[in-house]
């Protein structure tokens, strides 16, 4: 039978068929799925009575690499290589920009990730959303190397366990190049000084930038700013915008910009002067602004229903040992929670450096205004976006 269709007819029929299939698929998805039975896991004590979705672990035929969503300063190539050779566990690292970025990604892919890094008060948000599971922190042998306080942060302690394996902490400081930034600043105001147009680098973290703006403008509760406080914070960001050279994804990009002197100012964790110097850059200094700042206590969260869930424990055991943590400190400069690593650093003759970056004063971490989600994230994102996205 000889038939011919014009391109228009061909596309029309194709679209019609696919639309029909799409509607059928939607109808199928809307109707309740029959229970398969047998494959479900027992509910955890916490999830049994909560509204959090129950996620079943996806058994993998052959275990693949652990999928780790984290920041650039939470892992090292040597560490990953050594873990692979000692345990056979390969790790596939994807870097995340921001806590909200990590939260959204995990919310979309669930068990396709196995471990996700998160900051302080963001971690309970993951838990409340049913995305991560609590672990028994004392079941990790390597946890005995931690400062004892790191095993009992109240905001990570739940009845069914601990929400994250503690990694590091730091207040957010302002790093500056004293060759160009004079006199030495002590306030957030330096970032909006018109003298430094196009000379500031910050991480592209909308919520955190709103928190900084809240601190800089004297908001009472930076996580729950009133409309007036939000407007003041937005105004501060508007003044900041001309000074921003670029918004980067990872803090090592801030270090690179300070090292090349294309930027003179940047927000950073503890340790930035050494990192910039190590990157071949000039002498820089850093300070905690007089108005205050925010800080983070971060850790690795075990994803609920991760495809390689059963190997996460072994990965943390092997990758969070004092040797690797000490090396991570030398590479990234901010204090970590592994106390044994501090002893190693002292033995290596790095006590001055470790003490300078508060490694020996972990109790200071709990005095910081910790990073966390806002009560009105939507308004925060919109305010930020109206400044930097327009």
């Amino acid at each position: 039978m000889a038939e011919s269709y014009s391109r228009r007819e061909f596309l029309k029929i194709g679209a019609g068929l696919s639309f029909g299939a799409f509607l059928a698929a939607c109808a199928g998805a809307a109707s309740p799925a029959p229970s398969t039975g047998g494959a479900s896991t027992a509910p955890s004590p916490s999830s049994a009575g909560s509204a959090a979705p129950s996620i079943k672990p996806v058994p993998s035929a052959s275990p693949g690499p652990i999928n780790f969503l984290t920041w650039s300063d939470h892992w090292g190539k040597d560490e990953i290589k050594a873990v692979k050779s000692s345990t056979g566990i390969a790790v596939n690292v994807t870097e995340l920009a921001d806590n909200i970025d990590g939260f959204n990604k995990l919310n979309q892919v669930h068990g396709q990730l196995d471990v996700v890094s998160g900051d302080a008060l963001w971690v309970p948000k993951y838990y409340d959303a049913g995305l991560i599971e609590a672990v028994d922190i004392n079941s990790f042998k390597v946890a005995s190397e931690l400062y004892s306080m790191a095993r009992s942060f109240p905001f990570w302690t739940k009845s069914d366990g601990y929400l994250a394996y503690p990694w590091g902490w730091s207040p957010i400081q302002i790093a500056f190049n004293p060759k160009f930034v004079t006199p030495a600043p002590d306030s957030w105001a330096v970032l909006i000084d018109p003298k430094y147009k196009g000379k500031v680098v910050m991480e592209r973290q909308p919520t955190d930038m709103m928190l900084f703006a809240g601190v800089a403008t004297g908001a009472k509760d930076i996580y729950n700013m009133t409309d007036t406080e939000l407007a003041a914070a937005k105004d501060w960001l508007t003044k900041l915008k001309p000074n921003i050279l670029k918004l980067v994804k990872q803090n090592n990009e801030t270090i690179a910009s300070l090292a090349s002197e294309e930027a003179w100012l940047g927000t950073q964790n503890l340790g930035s002067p050494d990192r910039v110097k190590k990157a071949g850059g000039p002498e820089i200094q850093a300070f905690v602004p007089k108005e205050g700042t925010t800080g983070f206590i971060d850790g690795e969260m075990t994803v609920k229903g991760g495809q390689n869930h059963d190997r996460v424990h072994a990965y943390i055991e092997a990758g969070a040992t004092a040797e690797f943590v000490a090396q991570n400190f030398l590479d990234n400069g901010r204090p970590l929670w592994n106390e044994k690593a501090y002893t190693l650093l002292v033995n290596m003759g790095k006590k001055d450096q470790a003490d300078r970056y508060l490694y020996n004063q972990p109790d200071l971490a709990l005095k910081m205004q910790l990073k966390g989600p806002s009560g009105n994230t939507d308004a925060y994102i919109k305010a930020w976006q109206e400044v930097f996205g327009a």
Partner: protein
Amino acid sequence: MTSTVPAATEVADTLPPAEPGLSPRRLWPFVPAAIVLGALFLAPLSIAVAASLWRTSPSLQLIPDWTLDNFRYLLGQAGYIALFGKTLLMAVVVTAAGITVAFPFAYFLVRYVSRRWQRIVLLAVVVPFWTSYLVRVYAWQAILGSQGLLNGLLKELGLISQPVDVFLYNDVGVFIVLLYVYFPFAALTLYSSLERFDFTQLTAAQDLGARPDQALRRVLLPQIRPGLITACIFVFIPILGEYLTPDLVGGTKGILIGSDIISFYLGGSFPLMAATALLVAVVVLALLIVFRRYLQVEDLVAGGR
């Protein structure tokens, strides 16, 4: 004399009767197209449309309440409208510059360069595609930066005494890199159009009294118009959704509307992300309809009915 050729009506009588409508048997050939259209176009578009009409809670939970608030919000903010306008302008300028550079390049190549050398030059145009887009854009950071190759060259030539930072982290940087990225699309499209052109027509036109520019305008350009329009489409439309180049070389000053789409995504505002993306899609659709008036695609490509 009786004709041996059967009449058209007789031929029609011998054919099997036409099947009314489309029977399932006749739908099978369309299944691959349906899968492709459904999976890669219709489903994502439907999700985007639905999400654009939903809202988020203060804590960014997606709430499926049907509302036009996202569009109202976007269209009510002067900043977003201005950014949209700037994106359109950037696309127009890069397209114009791309065609302006690519046309003489392709013309010279087709008319004055031997076939062997044409292949080598075209290969040189295509070679950058063998490396990742990201790597190419990062390379431009090294070229345009204050410590970069371009500043070094200008310094060597004595044109500047201090490095200047006008090439990177602004609209200039975005323009330069977009021009570089999309030049091959314009050049290759125009090359294939010009290659089929009979250049003796230009000589004939001039023999008949036309000036060279008249011959070009009235003989050459009308004949390569489909190629020109296709080149415009290939350059203009992708720029409307560009995100990486503005992100990497534009800084905070060089953002385009694509940057907002990704920012809304990273911020978890999926409805606003979807609404922004749909506004871009509507503009693209409108432009394609306009382009279509000047380009009979079916005649060119499909030989359709």
